[in-house]
């Protein structure tokens, strides 16, 4: 995927190349920088108009940082981002603010992301006011419409976040993003904090809204089944890098990277006797992103690792039909120390 940034005619809404985000690690009273936490380390990603790209990985893999960096809510350390034909890295001040209208985010933590002192009307209408949309009564009308669309009543506008349940607060977060009629929404673990019965309500709503408003989503989550349900394509991240990228069904049918294979086999499914394969239990923990392993970052836990993996970092390569994987032994079945799964 090292081809140059595409133009809007390709149907690419958001194109990112070589995205890096390093956070300095400071120690001592002088707060000297003693190292860098490589949260995102060289990611290329295209998101096409109308598609949902899922970003999946375990905690600390950099998926949330990547999502925020792509919106420039966090400044990338390096990289290019092109959104709707515009070079996002060149925008400053007002130009960037104006562009933000088209790029919204929904957070996991609906308690932390909604100011408890603001009424729902203020919360949902805040973006409209910032972007100078309509007058006060016009904005109120838009807020009511957005609330009703996400399944809340217009009376909700007068109330405060703490008066709502988790699922309802997530709907407020959605209304807040949607009221500006964005083109692109980053959904950062939007259903992870919800109970299963509420989770499916919100997932259905996300799908309906996408179709109704021609949205494009970047859906960040750790739950494979949830990501697989909502996404057209899935990118799997490990320690700051994309290790595999494919159409969802293809990724589940034919995972090529050993990490994806392990993730799939570790996922406990609420079905008895469905798993015929052997479970791959990875040993050890994810290494620190401050001092990641040389070569392939997964090699310290990889059942397929050879000497070459420590020396040469495998590039993200196309294995046909847009199925990318970053592994020297992509597609090799894992037969190592695994336990049979009942």
């Amino acid at each position, binding site marked *: 995927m090292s081809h140059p940034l595409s133009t809007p005619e390709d149907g690419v809404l958001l194109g990112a190349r070589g995205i890096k985000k390093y956070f300095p690690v400071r120690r001592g009273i002088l707060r000297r920088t003693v190292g860098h936490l490589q949260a995102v380390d060289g990611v290329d990603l295209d998101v096409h108009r109308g598609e*949902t790209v899922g970003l999946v990985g*375990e*905690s600390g893999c950099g998926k949330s940082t990547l999502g925020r960096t792509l919106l420039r809510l966090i400044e990338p350390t390096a990289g290019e981002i092109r959104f709707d034909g515009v070079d996002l890295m060149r925008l400053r001040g007002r130009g960037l603010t104006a562009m933000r209208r088209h790029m919204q985010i929904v957070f996991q933590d609906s308690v932390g992301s909604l100011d408890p002192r603001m009424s729902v009307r203020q919360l949902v209408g805040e973006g409209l006011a910032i972007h100078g949309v309509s007058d006060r009564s016009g904005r109120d009308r838009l807020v009511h419409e957005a609330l009703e669309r996400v399944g809340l009543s217009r009376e909700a506008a007068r109330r405060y976040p703490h008066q709502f*349940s988790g*699922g309802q607060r997530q709907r407020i977060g959605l209304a807040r993003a949607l009221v500006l009629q964005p083109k692109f929404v980053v959904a950062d673990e939007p259903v992870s904090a919800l*109970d*299963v*019965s*509420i*989770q*499916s*309500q919100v*997932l*259905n709503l996300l*799908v309906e809204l996408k179709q109704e408003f021609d949205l494009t989503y970047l859906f960040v989550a*750790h739950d*494979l*089944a*949830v990501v*697989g*349900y*909502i996404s057209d394509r899935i990118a799997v991240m490990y320690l700051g890098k994309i290790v595999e990228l494919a159409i*969802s*069904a293809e990724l*589940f*049918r034919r995972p090529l990277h050993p990490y994806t294979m*392990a*993730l*799939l*086999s*570790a*996922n*406990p*499914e*609420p*079905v*008895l006797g469905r798993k015929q394969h052997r*479970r791959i*239990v*990875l*040993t050890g*923990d*994810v290494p620190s992103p401050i001092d990641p392993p040389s070569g392939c970052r997964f090699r310290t836990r990889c059942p397929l690792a050879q000497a070459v993996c420590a020396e040469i970092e495998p590039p993200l390569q196309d294995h046909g039909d847009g199925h990318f994987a970053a592994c020297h032994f992509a597609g090799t079945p894992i037969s190592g120390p695994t*336990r049979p799964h009942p």
Partner: protein
Amino acid sequence: MPELLRVENLRTGFYTRGGLLRAVDGVDFEIRQGATLGLVGESGCGKSVTALSVMRLVDPPGRIETGSRILFEDRDLAALDERELEDIRGNEISMIFQEPMTSLNPVFTVGNQIAESLQLHEKLTGREALVRAVEMMQLVGIPSAERRVHDYPHQMSGGMRQRVMIAMALCCDPKLLIADEPTTALDVTVQAQILELMKELRERLGMSILLITHDLGVIAEMVDDVAVMYAGRIVERGPVASIFESPQHPYTEALLRSIPLLGMTYAEPLRAIRGMVPNPLEWPAGCRFAPRCDYAFDRCLAEDPPLMEASPQESACWLCEQGRRAPSPAPQVTG
């Protein structure tokens, strides 16, 4: 297999300013020796309060109501005093929690914390206890245990801390392990490690487990029997295979169908459960699930259904008054 624990009509209430919150409202279940019972439900259904009640760890304003019976072997834990309970807790019944960081003491080494209960219950000396602590850490698969026994909790990863918690819980060879969401805070690959470890230890030590979780995937993988909780009650219980194959209570059925499975796509909408869990300060009259139930009829809104035989399960639903209800088609899964 003989019974190890039998809970009868357990009711635990919290006397709050807003009124009496009946968190657990008449729960019955039993655990056989060497078996694993999964207690599953969504947040606020009372599953964790049930676990705390069995350990008699409910603090005021919470109270286990009179008439509740917690029969462990031949003793009624609900009637024991604190001194007698101390002999049982951490010795015959142990518990592990969701977040090992908050259950471990940050100012003591993990070795000290494992050794503590050995000194208390097994009357070992400090040195003997530390040797046993290392053995326990090896048992739960902590690499270089001799060195890591001197680590403080913050020096360990989440997965390793949960292993320490398990080592602590198992060091007195308990008959019953209560595990409250033991893998919920962990990443999926680490969760897989901990679940494998629990299965292995269960086989080796022959203990019973009460596993509390919201995750039906973990239930499918770990347990022999399931009790499904909703709004402070058990609405269905029975062997895990029949619960998953043909759930008899509409809530169980709706829960199983609402979850996206690997391979499902947005082309087919999820069958969400409408509405929300009722407020525990004012549980609805009649069946508590009726306002959200697709099968509800007049009687459900008026009369509270008890657990009824729907062999091999039991289901608290009026549709099961004559036994099992007519089978409904299984959800479509592709891929």
